[in-house]
């Protein structure tokens, strides 16, 4: 053990090592038993001078050595496995533009699906039909679209249908909400 090494250990006791020197000191402690023994004595002596003497023994304890077997079974931590603080994520403006565009496209797509599902040939999807206000909705087994002569009126009715279903009620209210769809005329 050189004088430089031992001086490094003394600086380690005082918390004065950083970076590469700290790495060297840590490696040195783990590779040279006499270095470890000297570091233990230096730290112990410092602790005695600071008054931590309630459990002074003939030789300093080496809890690290006693714990080495236990700690060997413990996981090795990786920086990205640490519990992260909540972060405020900021996205560039282009992201929001794209997200908005996608949302609009999804809405249009949903409307298109509703329209498709209302076609006479598309009979596999059951639709709820209007019964009476306040009553439990009954699920229709057949879907038949009413016949409207004028396309403009038909479009308006379709829009009312979509709007009404959107505003009929939130989750948990469905048992007494109203859902409007196309149904066979009685």
């Amino acid at each position, binding site marked *: 053990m050189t004088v430089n090494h031992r001086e490094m250990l003394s600086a380690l006791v005082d918390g004065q090592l950083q970076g590469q020197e700290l790495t060297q000191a840590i490696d040195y402690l783990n590779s040279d038993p006499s270095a470890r023994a000297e570091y233990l004595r230096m730290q112990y002596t410092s602790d005695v001078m600071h008054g931590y003497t309630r459990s002074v023994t003939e030789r300093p304890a080496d809890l690290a050595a006693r*714990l080495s077997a236990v700690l060997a079974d413990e996981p090795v931590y990786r920086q990205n496995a640490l519990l992260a603080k909540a972060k405020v994520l900021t996205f560039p403006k282009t992201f929001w533009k794209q997200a908005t565009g996608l949302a609009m496209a999804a809405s249009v797509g949903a409307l298109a699906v509703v329209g498709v599902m209302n076609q006479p040939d598309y009979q596999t999807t059951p639709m709820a039909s209007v019964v009476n206000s306040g009553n439990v909705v009954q699920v229709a087994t057949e879907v038949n679209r009413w016949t409207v002569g004028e396309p403009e009126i038909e479009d308006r009715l379709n829009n009312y249908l979509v709007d009404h279903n959107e505003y009929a009620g939130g989750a948990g209210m469905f048992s007494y909400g109203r859902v409007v769809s196309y149904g066979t005329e009685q």
Partner: protein
Amino acid sequence: MSIDQELVKRVQAGDKKAFDVLIIKYQQRIIHVITGFVHDPVEAMDVAQEAFIKAYRALPGFRGDSAFYTWLYRIAINTSKNYLTASSRRPPMSDVDAMDATNYYDAPELKEFETPENSLMSMELEQAIQLAIDNLPEDTATAIKLREFEGMSYEEIAQAMDCPIGTVRSRIFRAREAIDKQVKSIMGEED
């Protein structure tokens, strides 16, 4: 960044050997605190071991909002209390604040639990250390006293003694070398 922060960062990045340094650095202090609760030295050592294991396991969640020793100290206190509760012994009623921890050394209700052997050993060590310091050259003695008894950093000592930091480091090391010779003779570890 303090050395504790640096060491914690290294452990969190996968360097278990850095945790060894933290154990060696704080083991005597933690054993000292735990002995205030768990008076038997063998049991105190077991509780200290458990406290360090808990600290290692909790390290991923340590954010550095408090000093590492403060955080470790709280773990040691809780581990001691749990140990006493588990062995059906009553822990002290009042909690101990981390900042007051070192002052409890002088608390009479805790001091009475020093054994005669412990008192004798600590007295022998303190005398050996004092003798070694008294025999040091003046600058070397001043440097080690400012470091150990005044808690000054190397930078502060360099300013106070009007010398480079490297000189401070060297003087403190030579002081420790001289002290170590005396301490080794008490411990029966001659050169």
